[in-house]
């Protein structure tokens, strides 16, 4: 049961980040930081289907994490979420066509291992 919940959390976190990234690329680089421009941007984003889907994924991940924490230790739940780092970088490479060189791969792998160690 624990591993099913972890799989759901990783999938939802990954989907949420990828959707956010796609939506923001579609929107274009944020260049104007004036409050009125930010308000207009927020209004547009609130109607963006990808942002809405990403918020839905984050919400599911949050509640599944709560469910997981009710039956498993934090020291088990938190390191498991570090798996999403590698999954997301794989998807960033293949879906978003980001240039992931050996430095990023090495860095991301070390970070994932570090998060795992930090939580045990």
């Amino acid at each position: 049961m624990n591993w099913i919940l972890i799989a759901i959390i990783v999938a939802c976190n990954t989907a949420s980040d990828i959707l956010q990234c796609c939506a923001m690329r579609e929107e274009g680089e944020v260049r104007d930081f004036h409050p009125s421009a930010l308000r207009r941007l927020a209004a547009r984003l609130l109607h963006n289907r990808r942002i809405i889907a990403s918020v839905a994924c984050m919400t599911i991940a949050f509640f599944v994490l709560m469910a997981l924490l009710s039956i498993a230790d934090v020291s088990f739940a938190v390191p498991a979420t570090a798996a999403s780092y590698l999954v997301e970088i794989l998807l960033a490479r293949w879906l978003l066509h980001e240039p992931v060189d050996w430095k990023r791969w090495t860095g991301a792998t070390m970070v994932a291992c570090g998060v795992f160690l930090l939580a045990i």
Partner: protein
Amino acid sequence: MRAVPLVIFSVHSEQYSPPVRSWKDFNFRARSHRGIEIALFPVVRIPPRFASIQSKTKIFLLLVIAGNFLGSLFLRLGMRDAGPLPSALSLGALEPFLNGWIVAGVALMALGAVSQLALLSWADLSYVLPLISVVYILAAFGGWVILHESISAARWGGIALISIGAVFVTRTRPCRQSQAVR
């Protein structure tokens, strides 16, 4: 003109000379706004036409990391005061959880989330994610120094790995070549 002491963190888009190209160019100064002089607050001016992607990336990474770290620290402090979550959640049962620490924590986490959204509009996801994990290091140090939590040898190892991993990622460009040369 009266000086109104306000603590506001705002990012303005006005053109400003000289261009912001590094951390040293950031100004913390008073400014005039709608006839009232607003003092004692840091105005981080980012002239959008001049600011480089690297500068913006640093600012927003800092906002994401600070928002998430301080948010989680405040939530921890608030939850410690409030006690364990009740089994049956109702509006009345949630009252102890609406203390200042928790409200501030949620606000800071929201700031972190919004900053991350802006950051993803120009920076690569594979660049942003490993760097945000610095929050884990800060959380461990925050727990150790402020909350007097213990850090095991494995945790110190984890902190070292995340630090080295983050250094590797910072050696790459934050976004694709076509955007970076802008």
